[in-house]
Structure formats: C-alpha cells, structure tokens
C-alpha cells in the first residue's frame, strides 16, 4: 500500500477517532511523523487521538519486526488481533483489557492520566475478570451445543452460566 500523501510505501496505519466515525490514514514514516506532530488549528477541540498515541507508544520499543509480532497477537476469547484493534480503535471483548494489557495500559494512561477506577462498582454481580472471561467462553460453548442439537449439554452450560452470574462459583 502506498502512502496517501506521497509515493513511498505506507508503514503507518492511523485510525483517527475524533470525528463521527473512525477514519483511516495510511502514511509513510515521514508523513506520519508530520501528521502526528501537527497542531489541530481553528476552533475544533483537540481530542486524544487513540491511534496517534498508540503509534507514539509503540514507536518507543519497536522495530518493524517487533511491531509485526505484536500485531499478530490474538485474543483467545473473541479472536480479535492487536492489528485489528489498532486499525479499528475498538476492542473485541472484555478479556482484551487483560490479554493486550501491556500495550493498553500505557495508552489508557495517555488518555485518562490514570489506570485506577475510582467510581462506582456493581452492587449485585461482582465476578472476577476470570469469571467474566469464562462466561463468554461458556456462552460460545452453549451456542455450539445448540447448533449440534445437544440440548442436554446446552442446559448444563446454562446452569453453569447461572451459577457464575449469581456469584456462586
């Protein structure tokens, strides 16, 4: 793929999340640098650009090879790759916060200046993150069981889901 601003190959794929919809840019290193350092002018709000920050943060450690390796990381629960997240700016499932944690945490600090929630907590359902991941997995299993018309298995899974939901596990 060619850079959108010149003829060189595009090595940076930036997703802007400041507008109504995510907007994709494919740029070479030089054009990306000048894009990311430009100052938004006029009366428009300066909002954190997720992809811009991710890029900046990844730049510190990476060689192209390391970045490619990072991009290949896949969440075992929802199947989203780090590349897809980087491109779309949206995560695939709650477990991504754990499995992409080492890349996400610095990004979260950039956005919010913090990594510790200090607001309200759910009162009724307080499962651990592991239980929540297990819930998504069980749900997938149940779907598969129903597809195979194995209703006995499906109802066992449903009971298990209930137990976790009700905090009995």
């Amino acid at each position, binding site marked *: 793929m060619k850079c959108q601003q010149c003829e060189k190959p595009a090595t940076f794929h930036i997703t802007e999340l400041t507008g109504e919809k995510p907007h994709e840019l494919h740029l070479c290193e030089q054009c990306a640098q000048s894009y990311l350092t430009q100052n938004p002018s006029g009366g428009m*709000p300066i909002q954190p650009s*997720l992809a811009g920050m991710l890029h900046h943060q990844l730049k510190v450690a990476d060689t192209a090879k390391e970045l490619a390796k990072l991009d290949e990381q896949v969440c075992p629960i929802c199947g989203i790759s780090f590349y897809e997240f980087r491109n779309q700016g*949206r995560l695939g*499932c*709650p477990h991504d916060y754990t499995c992409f944690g080492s890349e996400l945490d610095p990004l979260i600090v950039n956005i919010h200046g913090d990594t510790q929630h200090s607001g309200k907590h759910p009162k009724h359902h307080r499962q651990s993150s592991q239980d*929540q991941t297990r819930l998504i997995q069980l749900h997938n299993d149940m779907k598969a069981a129903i597809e195979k018309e194995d209703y006995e298995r499906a109802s066992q899974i449903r009971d298990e889901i209930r137990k976790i939901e009700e905090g009995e596990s």
Partner: protein
Amino acid sequence: MRGSGPESDIVISSRIRLARNLAEFPFIRRCSPQDRKSIEKMVHDRLQAIPGFNTLYYLRVDELAHVDRQFLTERQLISREHAEAEGARSVAIDNDERLSVMINEEDHLRIQVMKSGLDLHSAWQQINEVDDQLESKLSYAFHERLGYLTACPTNVGTGMRVSVMLHLPALVITNQIEKVFRSLQKINLAVRGLYGEGSQAMGDFYQISNQITLGKSEEELIGQVSGVVPMIIEYERKARDFLITQNREDLHDKISRAYGILCTAQTISSEETMHLLSSVRMGVNLGLIDDLAISDINKLFVETQPAHLQKLRGNELDTAGRNIERALYLRRYLQDRGKEHRDERN
C-alpha cells in the same frame, strides 16, 4: 426541551450517558448476528422484569423505517450511529422522553438521562438508580482495577459522559468563543458544535463534556462540568449586556429581522432556520421579543428538522420540499403563538 429548569435562558439541556457491557458476550464489533439478537432479547426480557420498567416504549430500531430512525435521532433519543448501524438493535424510552436505553450501540448498553436546563445532579441521581436496577438483572463487564469495560478505551472506568448544551450567541458575536474553548480544553473538557442537516456546525450551540472517564469518581466528573458552566453562563450574560448597552438598535434590528424572516419565508433551509432561531431566542431572553416563550423556540428547533417535517406532512419530502414545508410550519406556528400572546395581553 421544555425551556424550563435552572439557567434555561442559556443552558438548553443537561445529559448523562453511561456505557455498559454484558459480561457474557464479546463487544458489539465481534458479535455475530445471532449474538446481537440474543443480547437484544435478553436485555428486553430483563428490562420487563424490573418494576417501573415495563412501561417503557420499546422500539426495534432495525425494524423501523428510515424516517422514524431519523426522527428518534432528532429527538436525541438515539445516536446517529445507532440509527444507521446494521443488525438487531433497539431502544427503550420512558414516557417523558428523558430516559433512553440504547441496546447494541457501540456498547451493549448506552443509558441516557436528559434534563431541561442545568440539572446534572438530578440527572445523575436518576441514571445511577436506573443503572443499579439494570445491574440487578444483568451482569456487567467490570474489572477490579479498570472499572466498567467498554469497546473503546476512551470510555473505560466510569463509562460516563456528562454533557451540557449551551446557547452562546453573544460570545459568538463578540468573538470570545475561541477563548472559552481554549480554557476548557486546558481542563480536559471537550467542546463540540451542534450539527445540522448538512453536518455544518450551527454557530451558536455548543456542547461541553468530560473527556476523561477513568481515575475520577462520577461525582467528581459531574462536579468538573457543573463547576465550569456557571462561569460560561456569566461570561455569556456579560457579553449580552455589552451588546445591548453598546449597540441596542443594531442588536434589536438583527433580532427583529430574523423574526421577520421566520414569520414570512416561503422556503427556508434548516441551517438558516437554526441561525435565525438562535437570534430570536436571544431576543426573547433579552426582552426584545415578547410574543414568544423560550419553550416555543426550543420546540421549533426540534420540529423544523427533516424527519419531523416529513412526519408532520405524512410523506417523504426532498430537500426543496422540506424547505417549503419548514417555512409553512414556521409561518403557521409563529402566527398562532403571536396571536395567543396578543390575546393574553388584551
């Protein structure tokens, strides 16, 4: 909006939105069409089981006609994204259209409470209660350290967006609006213009909201927005005083002409309508126009939008047709209101 509530001469509305996701499903982006249907059904069923929630209107957005989806967007009951997305999705709305719950937007649940005027504290009380009730029937994706987990890391933590819509015509006329923006950005607040039919910014309406959602409590985030709004109100009032003392005739003329066009136009675009209504709104506030109330103008802002006009007319209209229908609606409405006000005085 009713044009009532605290500071309603300048503050149109206060809104709080909470983003929530169910623990047992992937986020919307990774949901299969079947997942979306299951979420939609599950949330609907459980909403019905909550006392007080069985009276909500429940609309399947994907089954609505285009004009109806647009109508809900114009009433700010669903987002533009929700109107235009694909797959099973819905919205639950309460009787007075203050509460809406979008299902399968960017997050599984987007709960929203809207109030007239500056009223974030009661909006928070209500939405917090609704959130607790929903959470008693649904298990939310929640992380011990990161809080409520959302599809986009920009919403993680409280999942809360607090916004106040302000009408700031005098700050625009006196070229002070940019200065206000810059100072708001410094304290991590986002400012957005209100967008009309062609997505052009509509000069005088601005929405202020929090950017950060993690690391501060809901009350702190609300405090940040509600703390800054009185200063902007004060600033706008000073600018209005300045305009009226420096140049009363010019201001009165500009406002009267705007009113005159609205009362007599035969065809009018939505941009021009917004622009003129903005002048008239300030005129009512300053006592330069006395046969209209703020609630009339707030109503006109909503009802002159494309889907509202088409519903009123009962059929689809192209841009030219809408411009004629809009002018007709404005003429009739303003004549009737003007007459009522004159009768009341006599």
